[in-house]
């Protein structure tokens, strides 16, 4: 789960890392009041859970309350990377001497936390890593020991006297603790600014919360920004189903992430267009009925592929759920089955008895028939 800057920065403050004074505003008037209250030159920043806000025109400076109000009015309502700007953060503008980059993230290569630091802050770190690879430091951390001040200091070694600094190392240690204490997938400060008066201040903050940890971080997750979802996707989330809406016309229901992706791949390979990703594997295998109801509410769907290959997910239970929904709703759509794995014998018997249908011997044949049906129904496929 992603977070807007204003929702991420409190984690830094709680860890003892300074951030600029600021206030969230939802209108020009609120931004004017915030700037007047701060009484200093400000920065007005669009609050969306996406990067590159500056390039999109979502960050402006203002020297007084009136200018802050105007900046806010220009930014509010903008579309940045698919997000409508609903609020701005009005912050005191700092006198910056230097900008650094600092982050802690989950690293699949070392299978542990990774601390990153660069003296080249304020820019896209991926670009810095390409253009100046020697200016980006990465250090895997042994999670059973954590990050201590000496290791943090070692990460800064060789970047010159300006960074031979216990205070910067302290920020790294605090950042690591905030990452650990909040189940972050990524916690990033870019830029970490050294002000003219020597203080270190986090001017921006990016937080990604591990989705698997939301259940034990409910208070934090409440301040996060869920992915934008269509009406059907929202319904699916309420049912705890993994559903992603796509722009094709062949409805897909399968068990397991790998098999569902593969069903989409083979549909595409055969010249068809999948209408969705919907998997009912794992603990969701008992939810075939609501899953099918959801699919049928997508008006673009011209036919359905039901592709089950049961392991944990029992195909007899899933097929029973599909049949229950089918009998209740009597949809006027062609449906194509491929059923293998745990419970397949019972599932095939059920299909024959209740729908008079025998599944295709292979997934490829079921999909070929579905692509032909979508074409016959005048689909984009």
């Amino acid at each position, binding site marked *: 789960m992603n977070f807007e800057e204003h929702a991420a920065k409190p984690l830094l403050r709680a860890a003892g890392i300074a951030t600029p004074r600021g206030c969230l505003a939802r209108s020009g008037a609120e931004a004017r009041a915030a700037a007047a209250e701060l009484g200093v030159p400000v920065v007005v920043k669009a609050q969306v859970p996406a990067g590159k806000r500056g390039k999109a025109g979502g960050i402006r400076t203002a020297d007084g309350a009136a200018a802050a109000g105007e900046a806010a009015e220009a930014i509010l309502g903008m579309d940045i990377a698919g997000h409508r700007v609903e609020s701005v953060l009005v912050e005191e503008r700092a006198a910056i001497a230097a900008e650094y980059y600092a982050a802690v993230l*989950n690293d*699949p*290569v070392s*299978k*542990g*936390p990774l601390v990153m630091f660069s003296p080249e802050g304020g820019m896209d770190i*991926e670009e810095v890593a390409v253009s100046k690879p020697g200016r980006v430091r990465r250090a895997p951390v*042994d*999670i*059973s020991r954590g990050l201590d001040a000496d290791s943090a200091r070692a990460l800064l070694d060789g970047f010159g006297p300006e960074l031979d600094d216990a205070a910067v190392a302290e920020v790294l240690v605090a950042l690591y603790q905030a990452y*650990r204490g909040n*189940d972050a*997938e990524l916690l990033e400060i870019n830029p970490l600014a050294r002000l003219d008066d020597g203080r270190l201040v986090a001017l921006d903050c990016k937080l990604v919360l*591990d*989705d*698997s*940890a939301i*259940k*034990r971080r409910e208070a934090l997750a409440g301040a996060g920004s869920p992915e934008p979802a269509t009406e059907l996707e929202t319904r699916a989330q309420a049912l705890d189903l*993994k559903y*992603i809406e*796509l722009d094709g016309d062949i409805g897909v229901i*399968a*068990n*397991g*992430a*790998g*098999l*569902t*992706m*593969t069903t*989409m*791949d*083979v*549909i*595409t*390979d055969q010249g068809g267009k*999948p209408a969705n*990703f919907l*998997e009912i*594997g*794992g*603990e969701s295998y008992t939810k075939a009925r609501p899953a099918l109801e959801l699919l049928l509410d997508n008006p673009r769907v011209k036919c359905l592929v039901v592709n089950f*290959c*049961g*392991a*944990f*997910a029992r195909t007899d239970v899933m097929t029973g759920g599909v049949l229950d929904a089918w009998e209740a709703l009597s949809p006027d759509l062609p449906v194509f089955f491929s059923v*293998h*794995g*745990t419970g*397949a014998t019972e599932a095939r018997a059920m299909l024959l008895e209740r729908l008079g249908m025998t599944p295709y011997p*292979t*997934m*490829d044949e079921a999909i070929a028939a579905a692509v032909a049906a979508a074409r016959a129904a005048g689909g984009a496929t």
Partner: protein
Amino acid sequence: MIVRGGERVLVQGITGRQGTFWTERMQAYGTRVVGGVSPKRAGIEHCGVPVFASAREAMGGIGFDVSVLFIPPLGVKAAAIDAIEAGGPRLVVLTEHVPVQDVMEVLAAARANGAAVAGPNTAGLVTPGECFVGFMPAFEADIFRPGRVGVVSRSGSLGTLVCLNLVQAGLGESAFVGIGGDPIIGTTTRDAVAALDADERTDAVVVVGEIGGAMEEDAAEYIRGMAKPVVAFIAGGASPPGKKMGHAGAIVMGDKGSYASKRRALEAVGVEVLDTPSGVGPAIGAALG
């Protein structure tokens, strides 16, 4: 990460609904389940085996070679570390949605104690005709049959389909190694391929990958030096970027984790990459002559 018949299996969470259901199936197939763990029901007998309060007590009481965890997400860290600190050499973690920092702690403990972990979010391991650990349909004779092909898969359902295709092509499996769909897992694609390369029962290897991460690219570096033939199928070529496709690890960010990158890396080391899983059986058949 291969489990053979006769190895002693401990089931953590044996008294739960899924733990019971799958323990009975494992036993019926021939898996040597020697005991279970359930802190609240220690001392009873369940599925015909003794139930212990902890893996540590089970190790003292009966010993085990592999522990399989039917444990809810937030309980996995404690249960896995219990098994690791008890001296358990191999763990199979089936649970999905384990917090990633918990996984990293488990893997650090495994490294410190010399244990190997499959998963989290794996469907398990199969040696056809001998045993299985986890929730794979090993007992379906049209899917799992003893043979000479080793299969590595991030996905249980897709791995099952590939095994079906192998059997339809007249082949069978030496071992199925489910490694799991999470972004950070114990046994990687490379680790599993290396285990199958070293396995004398295995003559050829199928890599069933998917978009996200860089494990297939990493495995390709190992495959470069292999004599056994390797074919692959990678799921997710038609998936949109920036979305988690069911598995937490199956996401393309920018050019990272893309289908094209994995296919390129595997083809560069001579791996035949199939467009559909139904091509796997014939391709392996041809490679084995």
